């Protein structure tokens, strides 16, 4: 999806900041929503080959985040939004909620889709290494999420399977722990996570079928794989409406994934500086 120019977004954000009623928590316990426009710089070397950042647009992060809650149903925009796709929006339903933990039904993409012209950057381009491959779609998985709240920290476990789309029928177990420390008006969050992907899932995204194989792209079946992540994020309120965010994520992928000729690296370090307008 093409993203409008940075200047258009700046003008839009400025106009909105002037005209929009400001209320970060829009609604009540039964219904509430939150929209955030984020603009920033992103260093984002893609996992998949052929996605090196080069143009100004590649380093520009423009996102519109939507969070919506209605009587237990929720939409959370979360990962993989730098390409502007809506494919990664989390849909869910709260089965149980109390002070200590949550139990949700979740529908979420755990790996980003790509094709021979787009591996996650803003602008589509010709990628020689991926010529002729089939598109890997954003395939949502459906499952259960358990969230445990502790003092200033939270961890969760997702167990999900591609039940609806049936593209790969693989399963995924996604765990993450994050602890937030307050220092004056700043939030500092440190997180660590581990995601295990079934062979069916890694084969769909990182495998090379016989009909895709070339001289420099051999047939490959990855098998079970994992991703381990470390993350650090700083958030600072610039005003009642604007938030500054700085953060970095280091993702390490297992050899079964990084050995694929579709994969450029086994360690992906991403960094982001952004300002967000919070409605």
């Amino acid at each position, binding site marked *: 999806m093409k993203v409008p120019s940075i200047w258009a977004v700046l003008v839009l954000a400025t106009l909105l900041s002037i005209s929009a009623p400001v209320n*970060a928590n829009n609604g009540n316990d039964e219904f509430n929503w939150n929209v955030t426009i984020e603009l920033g710089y992103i260093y984002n070397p893609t996992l998949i080959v052929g996605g090196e950042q080069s143009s100004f647009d590649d380093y520009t992060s423009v996102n519109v985040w939507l969070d919506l809650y209605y009587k237990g149903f929720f939409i959370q925009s979360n990962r993989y939004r*730098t390409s502007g796709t809506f494919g990664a929006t989390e849909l869910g339903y709260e089965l149980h909620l109390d002070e200590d933990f949550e139990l949700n039904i979740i529908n979420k993409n755990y790996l980003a889709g790509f094709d021979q012209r787009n591996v996650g950057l803003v602008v589509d381009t010709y990628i020689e290494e991926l010529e002729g491959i089939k598109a890997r779609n954003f395939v949502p998985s459906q499952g259960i999420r358990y969230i445990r709240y502790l003092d200033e920290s939270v961890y969760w476990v997702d167990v999900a399977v591609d039940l609806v789309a049936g593209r790969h029928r693989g399963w995924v177990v996604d765990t*993450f722990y994050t602890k937030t420390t307050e220092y004056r008006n700043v*939030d500092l969050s440190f997180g660590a996570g581990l995601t295990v992907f079934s062979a069916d899932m890694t084969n769909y995204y990182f495998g090379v079928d016989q009909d895709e194989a070339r001289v420099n792209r051999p047939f490959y079946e990855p098998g079970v794989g994992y991703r381990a992540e470390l993350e650090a994020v700083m958030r600072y*309120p*610039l005003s009642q409406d604007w938030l500054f965010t700085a953060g970095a*994520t280091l993702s390490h992928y297992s050899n079964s994934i990084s050995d694929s000729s579709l994969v450029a690296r086994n360690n992906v370090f*991403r960094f982001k500086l952004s300002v967000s307008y*919070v409605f």
Partner: protein
Amino acid sequence: MYFNSKGFAAAVLFVSMSTQAQQATESDVEMIAQPNKCVALTQGRRCYAQVSISWTSNSENDICLVDLDNQLELYCWRSKTQGRYLYEMASSTDINLALVRKIDAMLSSDNPQLATTTLKVSWLYEGSTRKRRWRLF
């Protein structure tokens, strides 16, 4: 210059009484707080800011800066026409400050407030942080 000795109280009171004709009135004293807003990330969280409070007066005064909410004397000046104070704000609610004459019962209703200012506390996110996005990417 700061002074807080009770030993000087009688002398101060004498000076106060003898100079009452020249003392500042509410309209004579101006107070400016910069910044006068503090933004926290979430509602209910303590907000931190270093606030520069300055005041000017047409006449020399024995003046004290007080925290009206906590009934606290923050700083006093003697025979000054202006003053400046750095206030370390750490509060989850608005802070009301005032300049009053330096007398024994500074915070009594008999002692008029020469100037007041409010340090407003606001926030970006209302309510719980639980539903906030946890991940950077």
